[in-house]
């Protein structure tokens, strides 16, 4: 019996009567990586499927799923990250292409030049991957700053005791804003008025939410979010509408579910990106010590396959989280 890659050979050839042959006409590494990638497909399919179920299962006429603006999500940054990953996919495939050409090269000089270009492509891939993670870090920071984390998002409902935590949180945020004068004058005046009403017990959590976010925002989340008004005042301009820089919490219905989905999906994706970057770093170290050349073609093809998969996952995550 013989394995097709010729790596194992029996001492004697056995007359093999069957026409069956072992394995696929692929390098072992490539086959193994594809098997790994299909398991990763199931992994991300589970995460995305859960997100679809959570999102589609909401009674959204009354309490819609948070819009990107509600949760401080910037579509442009998402699009930029998509572009970065697409570029990195291109550079890794070009790295493989240069190595392929280097193997076919006739003379050592051409070969060396092509390998040098391949290393440059590899380095660009690594750098673009790092850019992706840095941009992601900035996005995460924005979420953390606004307390949009699983279990930390305020969702005011009629009987939710969280509303008292919300009241206290907004009170301390207002005190901070007034002390540090972080907003423009009009917003500062509104903050002072709101703080005065909170201290005097004249504002309930829903009224506070409306004064922070504005009546226009509250009306987009009709159901439980309608504040308990004594009189029918007109539309209130929220502090955040006057100055969006104010760090004030407001109620985001289904914000916690959103945050869980967002961090689960993008977090696992970022971990996969990081894993790919570790492998790229190992190759780059090898290149520094002269251990990178046309013989690395298969290895680069394999890490390229992994990297393309990571890119494909992001190609689906970006529209699902940012656009749709």
């Amino acid at each position: 019996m013989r394995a097709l890659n010729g790596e194992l050979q029996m001492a004697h050839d056995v007359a093999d009567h069957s026409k069956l042959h072992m394995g696929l006409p692929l390098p072992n590494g490539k086959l193994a990586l594809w098997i790994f990638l299909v398991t990763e497909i199931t992994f991300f399919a589970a995460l995305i499927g859960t997100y679809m179920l959570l999102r589609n299962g909401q009674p959204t006429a009354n309490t819609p799923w948070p819009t990107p603006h509600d949760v401080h999500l910037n579509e442009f940054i998402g699009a930029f990250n998509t572009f970065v990953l697409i570029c990195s996919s291109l550079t890794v495939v070009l790295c493989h292409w240069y190595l392929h050409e280097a193997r076919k090269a006739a003379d050592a000089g051409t070969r060396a030049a092509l390998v040098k270009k391949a290393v440059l492509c590899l380095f660009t891939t690594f750098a673009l991957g790092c850019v992706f993670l840095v941009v992601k870090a900035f996005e995460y920071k924005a979420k953390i700053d606004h307390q949009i984390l699983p279990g930390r998002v305020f969702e005011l409902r009629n009987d939710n005791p969280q509303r008292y935590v919300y009241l206290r949180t907004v009170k301390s945020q207002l005190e901070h804003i007034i002390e540090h004068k972080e907003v423009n004058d009009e917003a500062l005046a509104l903050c002072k008025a709101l703080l005065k009403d909170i201290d005097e017990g004249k504002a309930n959590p829903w009224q506070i939410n409306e004064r922070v976010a504005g009546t226009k925002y509250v009306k987009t989340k009709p159901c439980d979010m309608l504040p308990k008004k004594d009189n029918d005042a007109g539309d209130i301009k929220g502090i955040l509408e006057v100055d969006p820089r104010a760090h004030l919490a407001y109620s985001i219905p289904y914000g916690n579910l959103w945050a869980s989905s967002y961090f689960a999906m993008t977090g696992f994706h970022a971990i996969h990106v990081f894993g790919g970057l570790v492998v790229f770093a190992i190759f780059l170290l090898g290149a520094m010590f002269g251990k990178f050349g046309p013989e690395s073609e298969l290895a680069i093809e394999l890490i390229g396959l992994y990297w393309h998969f990571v890119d494909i996952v992001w190609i689906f995550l970006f529209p699902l989280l940012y656009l749709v």
Partner: protein
Amino acid sequence: MSDPNENIAPGFPDPRAGHASAHPPAAGDDHGHAAPSFGAYMGVFIALCVCTALSFAVNLLLGQNHTSAGIILAVAVVKAALVAGIFMHLKFDWGKLYCIILPVCVVTVMMVIILSIDSVLAWHAYPESSFPSIK
């Protein structure tokens, strides 16, 4: 002695040819039957950029609704197909790999169908709202 190629399908490299290179023989040269060119890679890259810009523009112009969602997700599928087909060489390796990839895709579609049942049940639990989250 039997013909060394007797049990090897056409197109398989002869395992007894020895290690001509450091690789198993199917690497690199196996793309002799087909491999994307430099131009093909650049073309796909430009197509991907155009698709991304298109998705972003559709979202900007049409907002969040069923139509834009349909267009954007269709574009996403096209982008994934381009990356998988050309960058990952699936267009050339499909005959060797479909046995592994196709069942997983089938199972994924099955998952979507099963989850749809849960979604529809959730809608019926709230009769005052009947549409999914994209307004």
